[in-house]
C-alpha cells in the first residue's frame, strides 16, 4: 500500500519551483557566501603553489636541473666523469648534460679585505648552457667561456654592495666586473681572478656562490676526468622520474636522483608550516560555511513551515520535502562553486597582472584544481549536513502544528 515512488522527481519538482519563486536576494547571498568560502579555502593554496613553483623552477634552472647524479656510496667523486657525460648524452630523452666539480675555497676582495668561505663550483660552459640558465641572468659582464683561465663568475649576493648595510648576506663588499678577487684553495694554491660577470638568479644559495671553468679547476687541483655531480636536463620537470629510471636502466651505477627528491628537505619545513596554516584556514572556512548554510536553511525552512505543513497534509511524504531542501542546497553549492572558480580565476588574473615580488622572484599564481575539487566536495557534504538538520526537524513536526505556521 505504501510505496516509495517519486522521491527524487517530486523533490526536484518542488526544489526547482522553490528556487525560481523563492527569495532571489537570499539565494544570491547564499551563493556568494559559498563562493567566498571556496575562495577562502583555495586562496592560500594558490599562493603556496606559486611559491613552490617558484622555488622549484629556480632549483631546476640553477641548482639541480631535472636529474642529479652523485658519487657512488662512500666515494667523494664521480670517476670517469667524461665518459659518463658522453654516455648520458646518448640516452634518449636527455637534452643536456653538465659535470660540476666543486671544492672549498676562501675568496677575498683585496680592496676591502672582505673574505667569504664557500664551495667554488666549476663547469664546462658549453655543456652548462644546455642545462642551466646562468647565462640568462648575468646582470653585468659576461658568462664564462671554455678557454677562460683567470676569470670568475660570481653571484650578486656574494659580490655585495658598496654599502654593506644593504646586503642580505655577508658579502665581498661591492665587487664589480673587472675587479680582481683572490681565491685560496684547500690545497694551498692562492690565485687571483678577474670578475668576468655577475649573475642574479634570486635563489639566495646560488647567488652567494662563484664559478670558474672546469679546465681551470682541474689545472689548479691537478685532477682530470672527475666530477662531484652531474646534472641532466630532460624534457620537463614532470618527466624527471621517468628519465631517472631510463638513466638507471642504462647501467649508471652512481646515485641518480630527481630534482624533487633532492629538494625535499629544503622547502619541506617551510611548506609544511604553510600547509598547516592552509589546513586551519580551510577548516575555519568550512565551519563558517556550515554555520551560514545552517542559518540560511533554518530561516528558509522556518519561513516555509506552513507550506511544509500544507504539503504534508495533502499527503506528501516528509522525505520528499527534506529532499527538496537538500536539492536546493546542492544547487546553491553548485552555483557557489562556479562563482568561486570564476573568482579564483579573477584573483589569479589580478596576480598575474600585478605580480607580487617575493624574495626569490615574482610569484606565479597556480590554481590547484584537485584541491578546488576536494573543497567543493567537502563544501557540499558540510552544506548537506547543515541543511538536513533543520529540514528534518521542521519536516518532522506534527501537521497541524506546522500548518499553524
Amino acid at each position, binding site marked *: 500500500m505504501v510505496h516509495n515512488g517519486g522521491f527524487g522527481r517530486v523533490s526536484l519538482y518542488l526544489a526547482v519551483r522553490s528556487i525560481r519563486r523563492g527569495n532571489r536576494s537570499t539565494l544570491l547571498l547564499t551563493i556568494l557566501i559559498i563562493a567566498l568560502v571556496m575562495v577562502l579555502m583555495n586562496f592560500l593554496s594558490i599562493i603556496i603553489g606559486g611559491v613552490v613553483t617558484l622555488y622549484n623552477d629556480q632549483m631546476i634552472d640553477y641548482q639541480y636541473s631535472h636529474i642529479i647524479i652523485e658519487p657512488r656510496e662512500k666515494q667523494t667523486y664521480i670517476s670517469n666523469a667524461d665518459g659518463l657525460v658522453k654516455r648520458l648524452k646518448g640516452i634518449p630523452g636527455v637534452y643536456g648534460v653538465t659535470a660540476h666539480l666543486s671544492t672549498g675555497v676562501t675568496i677575498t676582495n683585496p680592496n676591502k679585505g672582505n673574505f667569504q668561505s664557500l664551495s667554488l663550483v666549476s663547469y664546462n660552459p658549453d655543456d652548462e648552457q644546455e642545462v642551466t640558465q646562468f647565462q640568462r641572468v648575468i646582470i653585468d659582464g659576461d658568462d664564462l667561456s671554455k678557454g677562460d683561465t683567470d676569470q670568475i663568475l660570481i653571484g650578486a649576493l656574494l659580490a655585495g654592495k658598496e654599502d654593506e648595510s644593504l646586503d642580505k648576506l655577508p658579502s665581498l663588499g661591492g665587487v664589480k666586473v673587472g675587479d680582481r678577487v683572490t681565491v685560496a684553495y684547500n690545497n694551498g694554491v692562492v690565485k687571483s681572478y678577474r670578475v668576468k660577470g655577475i649573475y642574479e638568479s634570486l635563489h639566495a644559495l646560488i647567488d652567494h656562490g662563484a664559478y670558474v671553468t672546469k679546465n681551470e679547476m682541474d689545472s689548479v687541483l691537478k685532477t682530470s676526468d672527475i666530477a662531484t655531480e652531474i646534472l641532466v636536463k630532460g624534457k620537463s620537470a614532470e618527466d624527471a622520474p621517468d628519465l631517472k629510471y631510463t638513466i638507471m636502466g642504462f647501467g649508471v651505477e652512481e646515485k641518480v636522483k630527481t630534482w624533487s627528491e633532492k629538494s625535499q628537505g629544503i622547502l619541506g619545513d617551510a611548506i609544511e608550516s604553510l600547509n598547516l596554516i592552509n589546513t586551519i584556514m580551510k577548516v575555519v572556512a568550512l565551519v563558517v560555511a556550515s554555520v551560514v548554510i545552517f542559518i540560511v536553511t533554518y530561516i528558509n525552512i522556518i519561513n516555509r513551515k506552513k507550506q511544509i505543513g500544507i504539503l504534508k497534509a495533502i*499527503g506528501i511524504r*516528509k522525505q520528499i520535502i527534506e529532499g527538496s531542501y537538500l536539492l536546493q542546497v546542492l544547487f546553491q553549492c553548485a552555483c557557489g562553486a562556479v562563482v568561486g572558480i570564476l573568482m579564483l580565476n579573477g584573483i589569479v588574473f589580478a596576480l598575474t597582472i600585478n605580480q607580487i615580488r617575493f624574495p626569490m622572484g615574482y610569484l606565479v599564481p597556480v590554481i590547484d584544481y584537485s584541491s578546488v575539487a576536494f573543497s567543493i566536495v567537502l563544501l557540499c557534504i558540510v552544506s548537506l549536513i547543515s541543511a538536513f538538520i533543520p529540514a528534518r526537524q521542521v519536516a518532522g513536526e506534527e501537521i497541524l502544528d506546522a500548518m499553524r505556521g
Partner: protein
Amino acid sequence: MIDVVDLKKVYQMGLVEVGALKGVTIHIDKGEFVGIMGPSGSGKSTLLHQLGLLDTPSSGTIRLNSTEITRLSDEERTWYRLMHLGYVFQDYALVSELNVMENVAIPMIAQDRPIDECYEAAKSVLKEVGLLERKDHLVYELSGGEQQRVSIARALVNNPEIIFADEPCANLDTENSRVVLELFRSVNKDLGQTIVMVSHEPWHMEYFDRIIFIRDGVIDEERMRE
C-alpha cells in the same frame, strides 16, 4: 463509508487536560454532503482533523471504507491521505511557490504520475471551478474566493473518496461563499462526491444533506432531532 465509535481527543495543556472530543459516535454514508455545526470551540475542527488523518485521537476507532485508520503507521496515513482524501481549509492553504495549475496538480504529481497527465487533470478541474484562464497565475494574484476555488480543485484532482472542508467560507463574503457552496453541492450531486464540511453559519444549512450538531465535544442529540 465513515464509521466513528466513541472517539475521544484530550489535549494536554501543561498539567491541565482539555477534552476536545468526549466520545463521539457518528456514521456518514457514501455520497452524503454532511455539515458539522456548533458553536466556536465545540470541537468541530478537532473532529474533522481526526477523520481526515491529520491528527491522532486519544481513543476510539475510525473506519474509512472499512479501513481501521487508527491502526495505520505514519507512512501509511500519509499515503492514505494522498490517495483517498481531499482537503479544503479556511485559509485556502495553497503553496505560494507553486502557480495555480501546479498547486492543483501537486497531489497527483506526488503519486508519481506523468507530469503531462497531472497538468491535463489539473486543467480539467480548474475548468470545473471556472479558473482555467488563471492557471498560470501565482496564488497571491488571486482573490480569496478564487484561491478557495483553486483549493477545491486541488481537493478534487485525485478523485478522493471523501473531501473534508473546515469552514471554507469563513474568510469569504456572502457572494463568494455562495459560489463555493454551490460548487460543493454540484460536485456532490453530479459526481456523488462525499463531503464533510464544518461551518457555523446557519444559512449554510440549506446546502447540507444532513447536519451533525456538536457542543462541548459531544454530539448535541437535542438539536439533531430538530
